[in-house]
């Protein structure tokens, strides 16, 4: 256990240094916030153009979209933070062989490397939400009573994300340098099917079924229920109560944890068998 904790701490420190030491701390903070805030502004302008064209404001739909997009920063950062480790170490730094043969758990090492990205994402989410409340009339009312449940759901949501990220990492043992395709595509999958920007009812029936099968859909739903309870949007998930959703998230995080170990080990086994552990694909 001690080795795992030491590995995690050292990897987290390494990840933080790799992410941030290319520039001054203040510039890094600006950099960390500009990207997600610009992402939120795309939606603000989409809404503005809609409001001008249709001659009507729809604050509920806007708040729904804004809150979902803010928490989606966690999805993009956590997933990218985990699955990029293998490809960055293998293709870019070409250090994977040295880390891999050291007496540590490579799985825990990846989790540690992702930790710094999650910390930066938490900061970006906070800034984005604050900006929305202060300048864009986003409807957020998180009560003290809801706070513990919100924190529990946040931890469970992040656990699911980390496990999914490790699953993708296991697959990326075997693929060429597709970090950008994965970084754009897999979060895109959740962006479409998990009711992040729009309620599931917009999707066709099969799309709604896909959305209901992904635990993150429920995470986004409970997050909105807790911090924006006044939204007038039919999410199609009213049949689930808050505790039921928390239980579902708990079971999902455990299931994905087991799945992540299986996929990671399989990816590792086949990559070693095919001699792909330290391959480089530099076209």
């Amino acid at each position, binding site marked *: 256990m001690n080795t795992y904790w030491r590995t995690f701490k050292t990897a987290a420190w390494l990840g933080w240094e790799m992410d941030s030491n*290319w*520039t001054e701390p203040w510039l890094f903070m600006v*950099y960390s916030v*500009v*990207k*997600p805030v*610009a*992402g939120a*502004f*795309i*939606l603000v*302008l*989409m*809404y*503005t*153009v*809609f409001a*001008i*064209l*249709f*001659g*009507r404001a*729809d604050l509920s*739909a806007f708040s729904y*979209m804004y809150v979902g997009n803010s928490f989606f920063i966690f999805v993009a950062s956590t997933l990218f933070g985990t699955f990029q480790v293998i490809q960055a170490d293998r293709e*870019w*730094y070409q250090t994977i062989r040295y880390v891999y043969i050291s007496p540590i758990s490579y799985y825990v090492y990846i989790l540690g490397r992702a930790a710094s990205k999650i910390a930066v994402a938490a900061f970006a989410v906070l800034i984005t939400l604050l900006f929305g409340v202060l300048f864009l009339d986003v409807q957020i009312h998180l009560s003290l009573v809801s706070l513990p449940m919100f924190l529990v759901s946040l931890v469970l949501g992040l656990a699911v994300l980390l496990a999914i990220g490790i699953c993708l990492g296991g697959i990326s043992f075997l*693929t*060429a340098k*597709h970090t*950008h*395709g*994965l970084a*754009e*595509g*897999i*979060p*895109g*999958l959740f*962006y*479409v099917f998990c009711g*992040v*920007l*729009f*309620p599931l009812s*917009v*999707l066709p029936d099969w799309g709604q079924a896909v959305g209901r099968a992904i635990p993150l859909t429920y995470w986004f739903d409970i997050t909105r229920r807790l911090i924006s309870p006044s939204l007038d949007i039919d999410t199609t998930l009213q049949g689930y109560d808050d505790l039921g959703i928390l239980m579902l998230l708990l079971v999902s995080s455990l299931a994905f944890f087991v799945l992540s170990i299986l996929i990671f080990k399989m990816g590792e086994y086949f990559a070693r068998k095919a001699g792909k552990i330290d391959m*480089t*694909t*530099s*076209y």
Partner: protein
Amino acid sequence: MSTPSVRRTDLRARISLNLHAVVGRAYPRVIGANREPSWIFFEAFLPLLGIAAYVFVYQAFGDRAIAAILGGACADHACVDAAEQAVYLAVAKANTNALIASVVLGGTMVAFWLNVLWSMASQLYWEKEIGNLQLYMMAPMNRMALLGGMAVGGMFMTSLRAVSTLVAGVVVFGVVFKVVDVFLLLAVFFVALTALYGLGMMFASLYLLWGREAWNLSALMEEPIFFSSGFYFPVAGLFRVPGWGPIVAIAGSFVPATFGLDALRQLTLGTTAFGGQFWIFDAKTELYILLAMAVVFLILARYSLAYLEMLAKREGKLTSRHQ
């Protein structure tokens, strides 16, 4: 023993050498990618999902607006009669289609912009990291031929993603395009691409001097550029935001994608789309601006590459890795 060859320096030989360099650098991008077919899934299919999300946002907004009209609300007042309701309904449907089409066109341009950032601008930096750059520098061809080869190969690779986005727009999302002037459309598209890749060539030389800042700068030029250049909404919408809106729009217009997209949207949706209120200039004017940008960026790329190569050599950064 082979006969020693004489190095030819006449124009014909130089052109031939540089054309070979273009083909040689484009070749691994086209063939290398095809040898690893998994990229089709990662680079062509998966990114469609992100674009689909923005399509559904407009769909959701449109559905709620249409539901409100059907419920008797015409914009900010109650519908006077069935005729007015029908007019509002038709306009709402047309606007929803135009907004979705804007996203689809933006999605095709996203593919090229990402390729410019990650496979043009940061490519020399990447080559430096993996140790190829010194080999390129020793080779006798012009550096612009090298960048030209990267651009040709990159455009070819990216076209698949761009085409798949367009096809998905028409087949899956039912977008209707009304192309009136095909030649002008093709001219705008290719001139915009030339300007875009010219900008990428210029960035490539800048990145030569930088270390990890280069990677982070490329990452920073995704969402902020998607926003300021109006990839997912008509960029003239920014001019309707009082205060900072026009400033952001003007800053964004230094990226050729801004005028390229605005012109492409006019030429595929008709100038009357969005009530004609969301265009910057007419398509022909935008074509001339793009043409000027293409020339300027290519010239700047040529000179900045030579200058920064010299600077990188002087500062000893040409082959220094992982900094």
